[in-house]
């Protein structure tokens, strides 16, 4: 791949020929503000925030969609660009209510962060539309049309990442942005929720809501299929309040499926086993750990002594960790003395 040399903010940078100014700036460690841009999506160019100045060009251009060229001299920060970005943000805020105090997204909202960064204090808001009760493509996500800034990330992600196209951006009769949704094709994966930069789409499964500054984010690995998707469990008061995809470790790039993102209710289910149970006369009775473990150890020992170790079998689990599995097979082999250990790899 051939390389080009160009200058950005006085710094000489080498980039691949196909790179955009935004990509090249990022690899040079220069941050250009963005809102609609998303690494996995083709440039959308709806927000007007990533504008930069190119020497010899009167107008500012979008860094997300302009390729670098040999010898180009680029400015990513100037008073003029600052004002233009302020104007773009103000334009978005005309139809975006400043309802941050009641918004799930507060604290991790890209719009909120940019509005703060660009010091925007007064905007002439348009009268909000009457109803927020608009159906969405899936019941697992709540759609707040008032907060939508029409960045089109959701629409684009549904098309480009999932190949589904359950969303289209339209205008309602009053000129407000409104997503036309197709529940029949939606697979409830929540890719739209993951990429939404504002609170226009929010998680609608957990009854307890936790905002970014309240929750503990625990990075871990999804426990459904074998993809090994990287997730954050967002925890408040010892409960999962939402699951978000992570884009590190080269597995899922932030995407999740419906099970990984929304299938966490089982963790807090009131049907979880909480005490050992021992069956007496066909009925389970709660028991202490000592009682249950003594019975298990005594019976295994007795059967081993009477019938030999191969009379005992163990099913370890493809659902448990490597460490659990290691200890289980070690137990069967070293303590019971049999190789009768297997799991549901076949099922």
């Amino acid at each position, binding site marked *: 791949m051939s390389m080009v040399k160009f200058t950005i903010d006085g710094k000489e940078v080498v980039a691949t020929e196909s790179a955009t100014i935004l990509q090249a700036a990022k690899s040079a460690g220069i941050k250009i503000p963005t809102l609609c841009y998303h690494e996995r999506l083709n440039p959308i160019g709806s927000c007007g925030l990533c504008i930069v100045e190119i020497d010899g060009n009167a107008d500012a251009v979008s860094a997300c969609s302009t390729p670098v060229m040999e010898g180009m001299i680029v400015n990513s920060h100037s008073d003029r660009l600052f004002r233009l970005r302020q104007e773009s943000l103000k334009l978005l805020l005309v139809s975006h209510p400043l309802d941050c105090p009641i918004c799930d997204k507060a604290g991790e909202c890209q719009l909120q962060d940019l509005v703060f960064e660009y010091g925007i204090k007064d905007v002439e808001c348009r009268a909000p539309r009457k109803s927020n009760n608009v159906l969405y493509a899936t019941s697992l996500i709540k759609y707040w049309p008032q907060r939508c800034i029409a960045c089109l990330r959701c629409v684009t992600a549904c098309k480009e990442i999932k190949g589904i196209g359950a969303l289209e951006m339209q205008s309602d009769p009053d000129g407000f942005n409104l997503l036309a949704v197709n529940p029949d094709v939606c697979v409830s994966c929540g890719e739209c929720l993951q990429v939404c930069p504002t609170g226009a789409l929010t998680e609608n499964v957990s009854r307890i809501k936790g905002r970014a500054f309240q929750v503990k984010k625990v990075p871990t*690995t999804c426990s459904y299929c074998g993809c090994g998707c990287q997730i954050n469990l967002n925890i408040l008061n010892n409960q999962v309040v939402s699951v978000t995809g992570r884009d590190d470790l080269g597995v899922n790039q932030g995407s999740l499926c419906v099970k990984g993102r929304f299938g966490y209710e089982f963790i807090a289910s009131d049907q979880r086993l909480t005490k050992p149970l021992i069956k007496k006369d066909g009925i389970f009775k709660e028991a202490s750990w000592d009682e249950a473990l003594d019975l298990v150890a005594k019976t295994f020992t007795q059967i081993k002594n009477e019938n030999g170790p191969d009379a005992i079998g163990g099913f370890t689990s493809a659902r448990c*960790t490597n460490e659990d599995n290691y200890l289980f097979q070690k137990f069967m082999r070293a303590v019971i003395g049999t190789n009768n250990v297997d799991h549901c790899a076949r099922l």
Partner: protein
Amino acid sequence: MTNPLQDVLKSKVILIIGTNTTSNHPIIANYIYEAVQKHGAKLIVIDPRKIPLVGISHLWLRHKLGTDVALINGLMHVIIRENLQAQTYIDERTTGFEDLKACVAKYTPEYVSGITGVPAQDIVEVARLFATEGPGSILYAMGITQHISGTDNVKSLGALSMLCGYVGVNGGGVNPLRGQNNVQGACDMGGLPNVFTGYQAVTDSVAHDKFAKAWNVDNLSAKVGMTVTEMVPAAGKLIKALYIMGENPILSDADGHHVEKCLSALDFMVVQDIFLTETAKLADVVLPSTCFAEKDGTFSNTERKVLRVRKALDPPGEAWDDSRVISAIAERMGYPMNYADASAVMTEINALTPSYAGILYSRIENTGLVWPCPAPDHPGTPVLHTKAFTKGKGSFFAIEYRAPAELSDAEYPSLLTTGRVHQHYHTGTMTRKGSALNSLYPEPLAEINAEDAKILNISDGSYVHIISRRGRLKVKTSVSEMTDRGVVFMPFHFFEAAVNRLTNGALDPVSKIPEFKVCAVRIEKAA
């Protein structure tokens, strides 16, 4: 998988067979979509069902259930006949090519078409496309393995890939998509009757002595143990007691009535789980354990990447980590197993397992490492067999097609196949406990072909009885073009219509995997 899961983005042609990737590995389906739409890769779908990826495929072969070996032999026949094979690769890196060539000689497109129902011209076209537009990746799942010829199916796919020189190259490989979060890890950790960790055979005296010494025991068995599918029928006979951790064989195993009867014959059964599953209800002792969100450890995903699992929550009530329960039983049986934490267990795994020797917790905090990773400074091995095959040369086998164990007849004129839907997981123990997923897919549905439905006089949403030689159930229908004429599909997530009460327990002779994917049934309209 021989290759990383994002490797399909480097493929020019992708062949998926026996995997409804969109439902079962949605993230990999994303990458397939991206490969096709953004990078122009050609997708070949080989599946008896009209799965969603057919929509973006270049070619789709709808073959009859269980005829995979014949079809793959047919593809190889065309490749060899038209001299499209990677001869240099074959000469340098493989053995047995002449045997393969002789075997597939009779599998002409016309002959294979007769067995599989796939038009001969389509077989030729797919063979040409796959062989000439490389690198080509093969992805498969349980649609390949859950047959009495499952091992043959896998070997045939390996042969097809080697024939085109695609094993050991970026964007190529033979890639099983594993259905459970840590099925790769459970195998890696020696959760199999014939091997210790890292596939070290229990019958190998060096491995045997190494483990005996490390574990400080002198009575380690050197005899290969029994598989799940062998232990269950032996219950109450050779097997007197079972210790079951996190499994629900009553719903997940084939021929469920028989499984239940067998397990009931045990002297003693211990089940360790997070819910009182259908299997746990039969136990003598049930031990409450923790779920993934409540423990530390690692999972090994389908691309062999070892990934951290971190404790986020305190467990409910008195539930204990599986490791703690196992250690407590061991201690009471006179064998203390004391580990400070999960990383201490991994340290022991590192010491005893060459392929995991370099996978230290300190290294996987912010990255995933792919085994084989034989040393603490080894970068891991995302692509297998790049220079040579692990065992030296890759072998071609001459494999003849064998029909499934049970085919349709006058009494049972249809075929049943099973799988998952994307909203649910396995026996539904987890996914059916909340409102979110249940609201999307609340009840079991049997997919029936629209033409068949007409003949049976049933409409979408009406109820049918599905009857096999082993059981019967009543289920709501979903009438569509998803399945072929004469084929019905059912997911196995639902206890109220437990499809594994119908499936056939006939096993693949090598892998001991039951033939979940084909059995004969009769469909009757329910009153």
